[in-house]
């Protein structure tokens, strides 16, 4: 360990603001891109299922129409 105490570690030799700002923004940015990718995946899967159900509905309606005429 290069630092004498936890407070010294947080202080980063006087450069606390710049060091923690850099590391904070970096990991927040990485977190956002990762989470956004996963959320998009879930939404896409839902979209696939919804689209499929819609197609099935249209098919059923068409059949009923044909049967009634």
């Amino acid at each position, binding site marked *: *360990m*290069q*630092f004498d105490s936890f407070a010294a*570690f947080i202080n*980063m*030799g*006087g*450069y606390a603001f*710049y*060091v923690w*700002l*850099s*590391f904070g*923004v*970096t990991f927040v*940015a*990485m977190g956002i*891109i*990762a989470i956004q*990718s*996963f959320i*998009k*995946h*879930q939404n*896409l*899967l*839902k*979209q*696939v*299922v919804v*689209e*499929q159900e819609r197609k099935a509905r249209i098919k059923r309606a068409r059949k009923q129409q044909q049967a009634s005429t």
Partner: protein
Amino acid sequence: MWKWLHPYAKTERAYQLCLTLQPWFWAGALLCLSIGTVWGLAFAPQDYQQGDSFRIIYIHVPSAILSMGTYVAMAIAALVGMVWQWRTAYMSMIAMAPIGAVMTFIALFTGAAWGKPMWGAWWVWDARLTSELILLFLYMGVIALYGAFEDKQQAGKAAGVMALVGVVNIPIIHYSVEWWNTLHQGATISKFDNPSIAPEMLWPLLINLLGFAFFIGAVTTVRLRNEIVLREMHRPWVQTLAKQQLANTQQKRAANQNMTEGN
């Protein structure tokens, strides 16, 4: 010789490959990034001139190197797409673009936060900084151009041309510190025979570099799968897969709820 590669041009095989690689990439990213970051922040020795502010190097250099590396990978994918007409190649190109843009942003931001205490300015129009900013615009251009076309095969071609032309910028970024009189310091670790950095400072840097690479790989596998699902929405294999995965997540959610209610 290249025969083993051809099946992966099929979207279904590519999707499966992504699924197989993904857990390893995430595990590698988590492991390397936590070791490298803790080592770099707390255990690496202080720089004799820059004090503790030099610790920004442990995210600045990996993200900067990999912002260029990802761009080259993206351009190679574009080239493959053009030469062999692989749809999956264009898909992986556009899957890599956003994560590359994020890496470029991180490199620029951490550079600014390092420049302020060391140079006295958040930003200077220096050759290295400007060419890296152009890289960010190239990434955004590729994403925007791809998004502008309704026909995604056409979009892949157009964005691919842009990605390929933009490769010119990569050597400019790399050699900018030699060609121009810049404020930015010269290369540190790419001189492998004689790196100008102490080994106890270099190791966490290399580990973090590996961690960032794993992270880029992991996000790319997720985004490539997204792209495949989006483009192959009407294929039966995608439809069964979507149903299965949604059912799985619902089951998991229900199980979690039961657990919390039971407690």
